[in-house]
């Protein structure tokens, strides 16, 4: 069985009296261990799809089953808990909390667990080591470069060992060198650590790193392609 | 007026913040106006004192009596035109908590010297004719639901008046024509109290009308001189001094209420100033754009300061208006009679609104200055 099953997912936004359709009957399967690239022009609904997968947003209709759980039926509170356990999100603008150090930012998701302080520390250091920033724990986001911030964000995303990593234009704000570093890291997380990753991007170079690529156009999926 | 339009639009953008600030200033001005009204209430009697009335009491203190023989002596002093007297009765109406002032007076002369006690001719006649009659102020009548013809029973409070209850019939309800008299009191006949007193002919205080207001000090001294070195020495003062000393009994109200007023102003300055600063911070880009379009620094200053002033004044009008509508000392009935009646006057309202304008100016000064000094380059670079 696939890890992720989307069936006839539709999403429309309401702006005053007008309904704006964003996703139209999307059906998609993702297997465990996949590194899926989600591409499409701006306004195609890629980020919306990612948000639905993360449980940050709800579909207007259709079902989303992840790891056997139909998340479209969960309550707000249950979704929060589910998200904490199963999802690692990486944002284009990093979204680190400015008043927390790198260490504390990575520790954030662990505050939702019942781990002891020492256990949390071990997890955080492991994650930071994987992304190569074990020596920058006490730095604040404003003291880090863009690439470093994103790597801290990735550490935060993996620290709970989630079922699924979702990345929304992770290299969109980075220079070429940092972007390459981040993509290498993501590739490694997928091939070495067997993490299932879905990455939204408009950068073909980034998409090259993925194992599969699908295209979204005006809210519907075009044919998928496999990339080796 | 274009600036005003711009300011109004800007204030409406963040409706919630504007509303909260307006309400904050309104609350402050409401309080300020109310406190001023209380202070004015306390000072009202002294302020409305007659310049031709002087009060004679025992020099030992107010609680001691003088013999009625003093009356003729005082009358004979040059400069004295008329005289009346009164005693504090201190009776209990059903329960000690129902406190109100009761005076035993020489009715005809008292009403003559106090034209501020306004009573219809028929009620006046009825009162004079009834030995156990009484008149009550309209405020007192409202408080207890008294009507003309009602019988009131007062228990003796001060032992000098014996131990039997006193029964009165209300013969009239008076209005207080000026603040020199309040409308929360009851007046009855001195003779009725005197005939039941353990010691007859005891008078609490004299009210003396003098022919010439400028001669007040002189006549007062003459009266006191007459009784010095006798067992019943007197002290005579103008009605104003007498009234003022009552106010000072409570303590230094000016300082107390003044300090609270200051605290109110400071609190509001912090709140309003904070709002203005926040609003400037949020609009840095907008301000920069306005500068690039050619608005001079001075225009920016007026724009921000103007918004602060507008919000504050609206709040001030709201608060002062509310105070004027709601605050009426009678509604509070606190300690029934010790706190003089007070109400928010037009003057209090004006002071309140002026205060809000001051707050608006002070609170807006720093943010407006900073906004006008903003370098366009810095502003555009800054992410909100």
């Amino acid at each position, binding site marked *: 069985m696939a890890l992720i099953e989307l069936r006839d997912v539709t999403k429309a936004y309401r702006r005053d009296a007008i309904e704006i359709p964003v996703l139209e009957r999307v059906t998609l399967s993702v297997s465990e261990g996949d590194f899926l690239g989600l591409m499409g022009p701006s306004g195609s609904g890629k980020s919306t799809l990612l948000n639905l997968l993360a449980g940050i947003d709800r579909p207007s209709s259709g079902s989303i089953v992840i790891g056997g759980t139909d998340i479209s039926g969960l309550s707000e509170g249950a979704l929060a808990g589910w998200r904490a356990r199963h999802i690692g999100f990486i944002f284009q603008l990093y979204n680190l909390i400015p008043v927390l150090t790198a260490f504390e930012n990575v520790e954030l998701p662990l505050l939702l667990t019942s781990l002891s302080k020492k256990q949390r520390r071990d997890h955080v250091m492991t994650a930071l080591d994987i992304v190569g920033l074990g020596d920058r724990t006490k730095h604040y986001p404003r003291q880090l470069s863009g690439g470093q911030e994103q790597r801290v964000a990735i550490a935060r995303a993996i620290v709970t060992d989630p079922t699924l990593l979702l990345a929304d234009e992770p290299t969109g704000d980075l220079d070429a060198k940092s972007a390459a570093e981040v993509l290498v890291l993501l590739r490694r997380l997928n091939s070495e650590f067997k993490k299932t990753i879905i990455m939204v991007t408009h950068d073909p170079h980034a998409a090259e790193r993925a194992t599969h690529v699908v295209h979204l156009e005006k809210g519907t999926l075009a044919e998928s392609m496999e990339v080796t | 007026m274009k600036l005003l339009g711009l300011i109004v639009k800007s204030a409406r953008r963040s409706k919630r913040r504007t509303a909260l600030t307006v309400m904050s200033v309104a*609350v402050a001005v409401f*309080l300020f106006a109310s406190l001023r009204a209380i202070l004015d209430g306390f000072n009202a009697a002294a302020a409305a004192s007659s310049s031709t009335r002087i009060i004679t009491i025992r020099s030992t203190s107010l609680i001691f009596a003088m013999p009625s023989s003093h009356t003729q002596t005082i009358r004979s002093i040059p400069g004295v035109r008329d005289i009346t007297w009164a005693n504090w009765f201190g009776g209990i109406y059903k329960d000690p908590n129902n406190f109100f002032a009761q005076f035993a007076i020489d009715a005809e002369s008292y009403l003559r010297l106090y034209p501020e006690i306004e009573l219809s001719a028929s009620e006046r006649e009825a009162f004079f004719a009834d030995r156990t009659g009484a008149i009550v102020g309209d405020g007192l009548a409202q408080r207890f639901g008294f009507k003309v013809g009602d019988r009131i029973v007062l228990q003796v409070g001060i032992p000098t008046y014996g131990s039997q209850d006193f029964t009165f019939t209300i013969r009239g309800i008076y209005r207080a024509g000026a603040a020199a008299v309040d409308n929360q009191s009851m007046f009855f006949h001195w003779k009725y109290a005197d005939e039941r007193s353990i010691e007859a002919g005891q008078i609490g205080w004299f009210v003396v009308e003098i022919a010439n207001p400028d001669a007040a000090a002189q006549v007062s001294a003459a009266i006191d001189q007459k009784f010095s070195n006798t067992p019943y020495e007197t002290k005579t003062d103008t009605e104003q001094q007498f009234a003022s000393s009552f106010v*000072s009994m409570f303590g230094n109200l000016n300082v107390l209420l003044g300090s609270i007023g200051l*605290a109110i102003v400071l609190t509001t300055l912090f709140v309003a100033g904070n709002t203005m600063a926040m609003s400037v911070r949020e609009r840095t880009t907008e301000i920069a754009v306005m500068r690039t379009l050619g608005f001079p620094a001075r225009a920016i200053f007026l724009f921000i300061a103007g918004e602060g002033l507008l919000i504050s004044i609206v709040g001030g009008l709201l608060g002062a208006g509310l105070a004027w509508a709601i605050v009426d000392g009678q509604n509070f009935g606190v300690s029934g009679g010790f706190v003089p009646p007070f109400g928010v006057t037009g003057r209090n309202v004006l002071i309140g609104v002026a205060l809000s304008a001051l707050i608006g100016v002070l609170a807006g000064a720093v943010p407006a200055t900073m906004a006008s000094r903003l370098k366009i380059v810095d502003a555009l670079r800054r992410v909100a």
Partner: protein
Amino acid sequence: MGLVANYNLRSMIARKGTAAMTAMGIAMVVAVFVMTLAIAQGFQKTLVSSGSPDNAIVLRKGATAENVSAVARTQLPLIESLPQVARGDDGKPLASPELVVIIALPRFSNNQTANVPVRGVGPRAFQVRESLKFVEGRPLTPGTREINVGRLAVGRFQGLTLGSDVRFASQTWKVVGVFSGDDAAFESEVWGDVDLMIPAFQRNGYQSVTVKLTDASAFESFESVIADDPRLDLRPQREIAFYADQSRVMTTVIRVFGTFVTAILAIGAMFGAMNTMYAAVAYRKREIGTLRALGFTRRRIVAAFLAESIALALIGGVIGCLLALPVHGLSTGTTNMASFSEVAFKFRITPALLGGGLLFAALMGAAGGLLPAIGAARIPIARALREI
């Protein structure tokens, strides 16, 4: 709570200017609160500390205050001889027949006339009231026109210093001693020999008798013996209870006034706190979205922001308490309407009062922060994340 400690508090400190202004607004309200209630507290203490637990004061039945009471001279021996009354070393009963009147003396502060209480006391008055000590001079000699003055009265009313000749009731009296007693109301009084004062003030009997009981528990039997005696139309009260009652109306008026004023002022400060929190939430929308995306529930977000608002308010509360502290011990006075006499007392701030001030601050913070905190949690996550 790790989230709150790190995230919320640091975020609050990051916006120092706004936080400081909001805290100061709350500080002012708490300062007014503490200061006005310190007046009530001080007034009450002065009156209540006039009472001693094993003393009782006997007044006429139905008299609500000393100045409307009357105790006949013939009734004194009947009271003094009761077994519940303690005896001194010389075997004489520790009872003091008393009379209180007002004399008019000018105040130092504004030269206006004050109602100064003058208390005629029996020869054993200072034994009945052991807590009073002489700081200058000596006790008055019974049978003479010597008077003793309370320390606070000396400082408040003109002409009462040691050695002064004071003229009242058409006679001259000499101050031979100044006493003090833990800021008791007695310190605002002038004491003299009651048997000389009665004729001087043209009175014809005592108003009250204060006795020292053999023991505080003897009060009940003291009370019933007096009630059963038809010659005594009198009623005893525990001294402390009596003075507590005397202070009741004024204390209530001051407290009600103080609470009312600060409550209204608090509403204004609360609006300020609300404004600040709304702005903070707006400023940190993306962070809130991130936290929720990470899995922090709505409830935790609300709790965290509420805690931030309360913490900020508490800081204001501490500042307010500090601002108010200097008034502690400040001398002031007012006229106790129950006795019509002026009482000097001091502002009195107690730990309980400070605690109340802090609680009040916390309430302001909670009230001001609640709606913004709820608003913070309600923004749809996707929308919050889109904010620049």
